[in-house]
């Protein structure tokens, strides 16, 4: 789960990281008031709060010379669309007098299987781009989670950013606090970009935090920060139904058990000349209700021209899926053709249930995908 910049700043501030003042506004009036209160009538920066990179380039980050202009600027940014996401909030912060910009980040590194702290004196940048083009400008340290980020390790990294010892010590302290916060909130990524030096010292000007979804159950206070307006409505609905669903651009709706098989099914749709409309995993121990919910979500997409079920029964029982299909089609008649492939646990029973309800079922995955693609093309013509 992605957090907004203002939420990330709050978390860092709570962990003792120096964060310059700034508050979030939902209206131009609020933006004007915040600019007055925090900026003392001087220059402020107004920043769109959306889960999209490149906000600056898209015109979502602007300077304002006084509170009145802050209101005007906020009016322009609120409601604008950045990479398909509507801006509903802006962060208003006094414009800082910045002497230098660096980068500090922590990720969980798959190769070393450890949290890795990354720093670069080239701050304010797209770190992936720097890593690809000039990897020597990024310094990395894999941290042993048994001991955490040790003081000398943090200072060693900080000295890659600052030559003056007071600044290096301040940056090292920030890194250790960031590391503590990383485990405390269950993050999978934390970035301070840029870490700035101002006349007041070293501070985190902008922050990005991504939370591991598996941590949300034990961090309800973090889970409450979710912004559903940044998700497709169908994805919100699927999450609430316990399904994993990702909307795509094609016309073949896919309903599969298991993430790997779901991806392979999408790939096979493409292989036979179609385009998948979605990724949908109904999970392991599925019950008929999940299938009903899945069909409701898939059929709500107007670009879907055919629906493909691909079920390999293991823990998932084919008869559960068959019952779900029958129940769903009684509740809401389908307007697009349905192709069903199922094999494995209770396959014979499932075929019986489907046949009685007037459906037919296939056992071969390739054959089913070919038919679904062909039907999507006929339906779309």
């Amino acid at each position, binding site marked *: 789960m992605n957090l907004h910049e203002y939420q990330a700043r709050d978390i860092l501030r709570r962990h003792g990281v120096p964060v310059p003042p700034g508050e979030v506004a939902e209206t131009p009036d609020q933006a004007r008031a915040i600019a007055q209160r925090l900026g003392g009538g001087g220059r402020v920066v107004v920043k769109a709060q959306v889960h999209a990179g490149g906000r600056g380039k898209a015109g979502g980050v602007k300077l304002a010379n006084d509170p009145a202009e802050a209101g005007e600027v906020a009016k322009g940014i609120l409601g604008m669309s950045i990479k398909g996401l509507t801006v509903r909030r802006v962060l208003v912060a006094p414009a800082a007098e910045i002497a230098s910009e660096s980068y500090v980040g922590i990720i*969980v590194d*798959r*190769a070393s*299987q*450890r*949290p890795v702290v990354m720093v670069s004196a080239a701050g304010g940048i797209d770190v*992936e781009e720097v890593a690809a083009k000039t990897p020597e400008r990024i310094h990395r340290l894999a941290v*042993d*989670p*048994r001991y955490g980020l040790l003081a000398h390790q943090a200072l060693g990294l900080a000295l890659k950013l600052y030559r003056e010892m007071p600044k290096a010590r301040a940056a090292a302290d920030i890194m250790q606090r960031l590391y503590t916060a*990383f*485990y405390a909130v*269950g993050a*999978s990524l934390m970035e301070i970009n840029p870490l700035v030096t101002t006349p007041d010292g070293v501070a985190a000007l902008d922050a990005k935090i991504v939370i*591991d*979804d*598996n*941590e949300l*159950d*034990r961090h309800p206070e973090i889970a409450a920060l979710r912004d559903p307006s940044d998700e497709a409505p169908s994805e919100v609905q699927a999450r609430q139904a316990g399904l*994993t669903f*990702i909307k*795509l651009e094609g016309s073949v709706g896919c309903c*599969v*058990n*298991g*993430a*790997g*098989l*779901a*991806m*392979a099914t*999408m*790939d*096979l*749709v*493409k*292989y036979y000349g179609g385009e*998948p409309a979605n*990724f949908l*995993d109904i999970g*392991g*121990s599925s019950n008929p209700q999940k299938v009903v919910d899945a069909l409701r979500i898939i059929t709500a997409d107007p670009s879907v021209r055919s629906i493909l079920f691909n079920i*390999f*029964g*293991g*823990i*998932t029982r084919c008869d559960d899926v068959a019952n779900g299909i029958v129940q769903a089609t009684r509740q809401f008649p389908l307007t697009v053709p349905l192709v069903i492939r199922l*094999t*494995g*646990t209770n396959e014979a029973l499932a075929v019986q249930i489907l046949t009685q309800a007037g459906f037919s079922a296939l056992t071969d*995955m*390739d054959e089913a995908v070919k038919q679904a693609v062909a039907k999507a093309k006929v339906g779309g013509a």
Partner: protein
Amino acid sequence: MSVFIDEQTRLVVQGITGRDGSFHTRQMIGYGTKVVAGVTPGKGGQTFDGVVPVFDTVADAVRETRANTSVIYVPAAVAASAIFEAADAGIPLIVCITEGIPVLDVTRVLPFLHERGARLIGPNCPGLISPTKSKVGIIPGNICRPGRIGVVSRSGTLTYEIVHQLSTHGLGQSTCIGIGGDPLIGTNFIHCLSAFQADAETDAVVMIGEIGGTDEQQAAEFVQTGMTKPVVGFIAGQTAPPGRRMGHAGAIISGSSGTAAEKMAAFARTGISVMKRPADVVPLLEERL
């Protein structure tokens, strides 16, 4: 022979009285796995289905039954704790089926296992099966046949699909291993490939990867330098959009890295036969055997 599990496997089931644990314990016993103990704190002294003694701790179970392998079906919130406990009790092979374990928990678990020389398979995996010898986890036994093909995969049902293709075409398996779909896992492709290379009863290996990370690329390098047996590979997620987690926590394309195209190119470069679709597995293996 086979890989990691065989007739000598003496299994303790952590979470044996839970919904998933009890269901799959019956399936494993039915398959012929030697399930020697179960663990559910507070239910020590009971007997599961009249045949499997239940203990309060893994240490008790090991002392009383000489269990040498553990399988974990406990909820995600306590799964890391269950892995720690199994390793502390001296279990050398721990198979964690549980899905949804926080990644940071796994960063703490792995060094602990390493210090004790224990192997973890998973988490978030279907486990493994050496057909007719032993099954640890949830892979349906009825789709497998004994034979000489090793299978290693990050996925569950996709593995079943491919194993099903093998079995129906007379290609049995020495061992099928599901290593799990999480970003941090205890046993990776290279560990399994190297075990299959050393196994006298495995002639060829099917490797089923997916988008996200670089494990498949590293495995491809290993195949080139460390393996003489033929390897056939598949990558799921050729149509996956970047930046989205495709069900498995580990299945995510970050920026431009971890794509299916990149992995398939690494396979082709290192002599691994690349499957374009699951049904390619049989003809490609027949070409290489």
